[in-house]
């Protein structure tokens, strides 16, 4: 399964949900869905904006883990 490590990257960059949502131009509700691993898909445009604002690579935000292992560390 794909695990979203957005909360880890956000904590490293010391940026809050509200601020990041505003910067990438998505709603806080949608960002929370993404952060809490409830999203079914991510648009390239969203990923692009997240990487731009968080100064990271897609691989820093997304990771693959065997089913049942949500926390990748």
């Amino acid at each position, binding site marked *: 399964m794909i695990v979203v490590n957005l909360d880890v990257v956000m904590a490293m960059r010391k940026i809050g949900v509200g601020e990041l949502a505003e910067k990438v131009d998505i709603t806080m509700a949608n960002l929370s869905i993404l952060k809490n691993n409830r*999203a079914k*898909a991510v*648009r390239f445009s969203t990923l692009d904006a997240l990487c731009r604002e968080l100064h990271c690579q897609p691989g820093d935000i997304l990771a693959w883990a065997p089913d049942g292992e949500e926390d990748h560390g």
Partner: protein
Amino acid sequence: MKRENLANGVTRFTKAILDVMFYGGILATLSLPWAFRYLGRFYPNVARYYWLHVVLFFLSGIGAVLIIHELRRMFATVLRNDCFVEQNVASLRRMGVYGLSIALVTAVRMAVIFTPATVIIIVVFLLAALFSFVLSRVFAEAVRCKEENDLTI
């Protein structure tokens, strides 16, 4: 603006029609014993099979009222701009079951008193039930697509 006004007018009209049909349907169903007593004066068959008519039409009436009840529930979701929900899939499925039940009850009635109109009613409700089942599958697919779209960030 003009199109929006027209849509609002159609919405209000449809809601009014559904309300009238729902409460009118309940009244008509409850008044069946008296209605058939009155009709029995003019139609000998109705007088002869009075209780059969009352019971079978009462069952059909309940089915029809339940169909309108489901339609009103669906219409409420349309008014909320949130019609692609699992509740409507279940509503359409239930409407199909009610339609089939009405067709079945009418078929029983046809066994007692055969009229060409009864055959038409059976065919209409059978087709409506089939249409309802197909529409419920279409809605289920639409709900799945919408959920996927909503969860695409």
